[in-house]
Structure formats: C-alpha cells, structure tokens
C-alpha cells in the first residue's frame, strides 16, 4: 500500500530533524539529503495531483 501524504510529510520532518540531531554523520548525509529531496518532490506531486472525492449520499433525509 502506498504511503499516505501525511506519512510522507512526517517522514520528511523526521529526515530534516536528523540533520540537526547528534546522530548526524557526514558519511550518511549525502544519501539522506538525496532521499529527502526525492521525498519532497513526491509530496509536491501528490499534493498537485490529489483530488477530493465528494459524494452526495443517496439517502432521503426528509423521510423518517
């Protein structure tokens, strides 16, 4: 199942936080940075393409 947009946004935030954390390692930074830029592009694409699904329920609420 593909990731939800909110999961991707959370992942991006976690990825950014890593750069500010004590876990930061220069050897891994380049790879992480590439991952984050890919993720940001995916988020942009998802946000641009996502459409809301609006359905009017067939139920007649004027009747008991």
């Amino acid at each position, binding site marked *: 199942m593909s990731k939800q947009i909110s999961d991707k946004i959370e992942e*991006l*935030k976690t990825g950014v936080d890593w*750069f500010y954390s004590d876990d930061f390692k220069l050897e891994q930074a380049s790879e992480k940075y590439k991952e984050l830029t890919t993720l940001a592009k995916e988020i942009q694409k998802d946000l641009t393409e996502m459409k809301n699904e609006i*359905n009017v329920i067939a139920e007649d609420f004027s009747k*008991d």
Partner: protein
Amino acid sequence: MSEEQQVYSVSDFQAVCNQILETAFAGVVVEGEVASFKVNQGKFVFFDLKDEQASVGCFMMKYALRFPLEDGMRVRVRALPKLTNWGKFSLTVQSVMPVGEGNLKKSFELLKKKLTAEGLFAPEKKRSLPPVVRRIGVISSTQAAGYADFCKILNERWGGLEVSVAHTQVQGMAAADQIIRALKYFNERGEMDVIAIIRGGGSADDLAVFNDEKLVRAVAASKIPVITGIGHEVDESLCDFAADVVASTPSNAAQMLTRDKREVLRQAKDSIVRVQNLFNSKIDEMLRENLRVIEQVKLDVVVKITTLESEIDGICKVLTQLNPEEVLKRGYALILGEPKVGNVVKITTRDKEIDARVEKIKER
C-alpha cells in the same frame, strides 16, 4: 328537509369534518402570537394562537415542543386542524418555531440557560478535531451557497479527502429533523473522522433551526466530533455551543479541517533548502576544523624544532666549553706522560708542543 339529503350522526359528522380538514389543510402552517400558554401534567401543551381579529386553540405534546415558548411570542406552527369530540375547533401542532428576531432571541436565551444548566455545553465535553482528517461527513443543502463555499475552500486547500454529503434542508420547520437523521446516519456507520454541519448566512428566522432543542441535543450526543460552520462571523446558534469545534463560516470550517497544500509545499521546499544549507555548513565546519588541526600541527612542529634547536645550541655551548683546546687558549698546558723524575713528558700549549724531562717532583 329533502328525502335525499344525507343525515349524519354527530360522530360521523365530526369524522367527515376532520377528513375534509385533513384533506384541505394537510400540514397547514399558521403564524400568530402565543397566548394562555400552559403545560398540563408535564406532557400536554395548550396555548392560543391569535392575531388582531381571531384566535384558535392549539394542542401539542410537550416532547414535540423544541423551542421554549412564552405568552406574547410570535410563532409559526405546522399543524393539523381538528374538530374535537366536544365540537371545539383546534390545531394539533406538529411543530412550532418562534419567528422574528426578538422572539427568536428570547427563545434562544431560555433554551441556552436550560441546556447550560444541564451541562450540555461544558468545555470539558469538547473534543479536538483529529490531527489528520481523511473522511468528512457533511450535513448541508447541496444547493446552498455556504456548501459551495465549503467545497471550494476544501478543494483549494487539500486533496485526497473522502467527503460524504448528507443533503438536507438547512432552514424551515422540517430541517431540524432532517439534520438529526443525517447525524444519526453518520453516527450509525461510524466511518467519518468528523461531521461538519454547514449553512451559509441568513436571517435570524433562516438560522432558527440551529436552535432547535432536539437538534442541539443530537449534536451534543454525537459520537463523532462535530464542527459547525453556520452563518456569518456574528451569528451564533445553540448548535455552535453544543459542537466540539465552531467555525465562524462554512469557508472557515473548510480551513479548520484541512491544511493548506500551498503552505505544506512551501514548508517542504524550505526544509530542503534548510537541510542543504545545514549540510554545506557542516561540511565547511569540518573543513575549517581540519585546516585548524593542520595549522596547529604545523605550529607544534615549528615549536618542537625551535625547542630542539635551542637544546642543541646549549649542548654545543657545553661541548665547546669542554673542548681542551679552549682550556689551552686560556693559558693552560696539557701534560701527557708519567710524571717521574727523568721521564720525558709531552707538554701541549695553545700554540706549542714541547718534550720536557722531569727533574724534580714535590708534593703540594
């Protein structure tokens, strides 16, 4: 009296009258002023509905009374006209709603006081909206401008939402029950993250449905969090008080339910730029640290060499002082050979070497 003319019993006549009334006035709506309002045995409500020229008695069950009434209030009733067994004409009221801003306000205040005392609007009962909303149950009229505003803002701000819309009336005497049924519908299915009750601006009469006691109670009892976006900023309804979250308008409700994708995009781009800058600055920092270490090592080496040079210089000075030639230069002589009388010894001075015979030895 003609032979052919139909003769009714009193009961039949009353029944036929009621049939005719029911056919002619099925669900008639009458507007007038309330007089002689009273509740008998806690169940039966009686009042007269009157204007300047006429008055008609009204009867209804207390459970059907959804707005507090008082004498002098102007109301609109939906009722069935009826001739009672005692030959009295009355209206059996199905629903009643105050009309006119003053009456609505009075009814609003009375019901607000009652429901507040019951704790229906207590802040501790309020639930927050889920952090991520994916499924929204909307209760509104799909023809209403407020609904269109709500959808427009929703679509502008976010995507991927599942929005189920329960189309109901949002004004008039039938609206409250329809909205209650829609609330029940969503609650029974339990699929929605939130229920949004949406209605654009209107007059006090138009918005009066949202002060219906039964509807207000249904909003408060909803298992799914409810957000209201009813009317304009200045409007307030008892449904707003009962809801978990109140938006000032339908558009505002859409804003409160969604993040703005333009803002999310901007933040994502900013994050990447910040990371890039941070990454570069970390590399610069490490490069600077490396250069600093190299410079320090260079400095240490120079200091070490200087120290060694200085030490060597000292040693050289000591060695120079220990050099026998230096002693000879100061006027001393070096004698080699055994100092015995008759022996030849070698005497070395600053500039001469002398062979000399020992003639006499004396202890000092």
